[in-house]
């Protein structure tokens, strides 16, 4: 408790000032929401590795760093600085700099009539009723200190509303840019995406950093999938290697929904990606697809909580990890099948490639089943690049680095192939190529070549 108090002390001053000035400070419901969340955060403090959900991820570095909330951002970015982060073929690109919406940098082109893409702060000011209906209605701030902290500081982020029956063909792209500050800085982007009945859309969250410096991005997205919606969500983490990134995607699925969540974790020092769908309506389908590629001392934690709360829903989790250097990956897939969720079909697969002796993966399935007519399966594998495959490619004239890259890419392609063809997949493919090229080229790579420990390949562990 003492520890929790010390930690929250760092945030108390920031919160008092924030609460006074933030958008919607005069709205009683929002004031209460922030206060309750902050009180909850003060009660629990940051999790420790004694907490089952955080067993493999030590966040004490976040607790010990005095992060400062940047509210009145002095950073002025030019269009040119953002040029490398523009993605062709998207419906719009909203840019957030250190968590604040930057209208002058955002591109709002091709949106169908009725679709609202805006900033949360602006909507809180102009349209608070719509926000009140959904904001924090789905998120569990009691269970998760980071979600509590984000809610306490919830002010800006994206607000997207897709009206009933609307088809948004091109992706809605949200770019989160962190910039350097003289002191460690934090941001708490809060996104609210509401897709009404029978609509279809694709959303992308892309986290990048423009320059070095210790940053902590603690983001929450609530995605409300109305009945019969077909939605895709991409989370791309490619910040620099001093960045802390904690993200939570909370998906509320209605009847006969089809939601796909893709996570691609490539950057950051300590990254935790929570994906938490609740299949609340009958006949919902959820695919959670992830790829994490780590090197050096990166820590990449993928935490899934899939709740089956209605009958005849299906969920699929597929995560592939590639870890080199001293990187540490975590896959924690929790599936809860509630009492009424008969005919649930849940599947979970985690496959990992470890490229160095010092790379580490912790993979943990956790099934809690309270219904009696369900199908739940899980499996995990850990292996190395197969010596036989490497030799096969080399014996046909392909040099070792290229052969390694081909094999790594083939492994990553399993995740890529689950993404729909289009501009986002192409973008992700480029990022993956870049990451894998670095791994294949790394001096570390030479050490592992031709290791013929085929006997240990693909050891079934779950």
């Amino acid at each position, binding site marked *: 408790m003492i520890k929790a108090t010390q930690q929250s002390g760092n945030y108390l001053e920031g919160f008092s000032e924030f609460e006074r000035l933030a958008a919607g400070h005069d709205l009683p419901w929002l004031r209460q929401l922030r206060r309750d969340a902050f009180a909850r955060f003060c009660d629990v403090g940051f999790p420790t590795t004694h907490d089952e959900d955080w067993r493999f991820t030590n966040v004490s570095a976040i607790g010990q760093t005095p992060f400062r909330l940047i509210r009145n951002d002095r950073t002025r970015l030019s269009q040119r600085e953002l040029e490398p982060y523009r993605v062709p073929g998207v419906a719009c690109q909203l840019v957030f700099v250190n968590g604040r919406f930057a209208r002058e940098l955002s591109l709002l082109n091709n949106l169908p009539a009725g679709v609202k893409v805006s900033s949360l702060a602006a909507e809180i000011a102009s349209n608070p009723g719509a926000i009140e209906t959904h904001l924090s209605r789905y998120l569990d701030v009691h269970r998760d200190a980071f979600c509590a902290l984000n809610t306490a500081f919830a002010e800006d982020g994206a607000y997207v509303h897709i009206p009933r029956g609307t088809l948004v063909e091109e992706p809605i792209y949200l770019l989160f840019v962190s910039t350097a500050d003289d002191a460690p800085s934090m941001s708490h982007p809060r996104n609210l995406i509401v897709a009404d009945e029978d609509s279809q859309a694709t959303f992308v969250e892309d986290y990048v950093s423009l320059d070095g410096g210790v940053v902590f991005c603690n983001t929450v997205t609530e995605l409300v999938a109305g009945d019969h919606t077909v939605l895709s969500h991409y989370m791309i983490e490619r910040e620099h290697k001093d960045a802390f990134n904690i993200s939570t995607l909370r998906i509320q699925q209605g009847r006969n929904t089809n939601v796909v969540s893709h996570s691609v974790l490539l950057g950051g020092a300590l990254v935790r990606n929570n994906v938490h769908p609740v299949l609340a309506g009958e006949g919902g389908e959820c695919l959670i697809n992830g790829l994490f590629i780590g090197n050096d001392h990166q820590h990449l934690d993928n935490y899934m909580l899939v709740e089956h709360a209605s009958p005849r829903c299906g969920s699929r989790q597929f995560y592939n990890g590639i870890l080199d250097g001293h990187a540490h990956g975590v896959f924690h897939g929790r599936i809860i099948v509630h009492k009424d969720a008969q005919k649930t079909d849940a599947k979970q697969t985690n496959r990992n490639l470890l490229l160095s002796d010092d790379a580490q993966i912790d993979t943990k399935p956790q099934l809690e089943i309270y219904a009696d007519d369900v199908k739940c399966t899980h499996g995990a594998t850990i292996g190395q690049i*197969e*010596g*036989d*495959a490497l*030799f*096969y*490619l*080399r*014996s*046909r*004239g*392909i*040099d*070792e680095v*290229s*052969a390694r890259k*081909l*094999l790594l*890419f*083939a*492994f990553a*392609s*399993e995740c890529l192939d689950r993404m729909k063809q289009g501009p986002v997949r192409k973008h992700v493919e480029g990022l993956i190529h870049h990451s894998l090229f670095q791994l294949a080229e790394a001096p570390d790579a030479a050490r592992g070549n*031709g290791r*013929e420990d085929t006997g240990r390949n693909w050891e079934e562990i779950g």
Partner: protein
Amino acid sequence: MLEIKNLHVKVDNHEILKGIDLKVNAGEVHSIMGPNGSGKSTLAQVLARRETYNVTSGEVSYNGKNLLAMKPEEAACEGIFMAFQYPVEIPGISNAYFLRSALNAIRKYRGLDEIDAMDFLPMFREKLKLLDMDEKLMNRSVNEGFSGGEKKRNEILQMAVLEPKLAILDETDSGLDIDALKIVAQGVDAMRNPERAIIVVTHYQRLLNYIVPDFVHVLVDGRIVRSGGPELALELEENGYGSMEAEARHATPA
């Protein structure tokens, strides 16, 4: 083209090849026959430069160069091709992409322009026809879910596309039914020419009915115990390896 002198090879501290001498000239087809465990596949893999084999002594010269100093990809680029006894499945890489990458790697090594997908396709189709292979297999992952026969045909397809100077077929006949064997053998036979040498490693004589070798060598317990013409294969078919194994046992180790 290839000259092996007194080659000794160990695997896990166990001597598998105990002094091999072999000379192969361009245009020749040699068959290496022998019982299981005699070292046939080890010899093939050493020539393809698999690094897990420990060459303890001896020399291998290939077109005047020291083959034992080459990496597998260098040997391949210099024109050596081994058809694998157990072709490896590589999920996630399409057969067509793999083959084009290999061809271009070799072309680049030789200072030739890379071939793009458009130019590659017609040539590729022609080779597919030669081996009676379904074009659909080409968009599938390398060897993944292929039948045994399809895998072996795929090896010969690769050989046909890469056009090696020295091809080593490691038990390409094993597990093939007679129809598949004929197709594979015809594919190989079509590639015989005065510039190319072929080494056919096999346990049985049947393949040699279709690819008639110029020379047959019998490998027993890590040594070539007899060499001769195609008639030697027939003799083995008649009498088995038993008598030669006995001879090998009586021979005093060097």
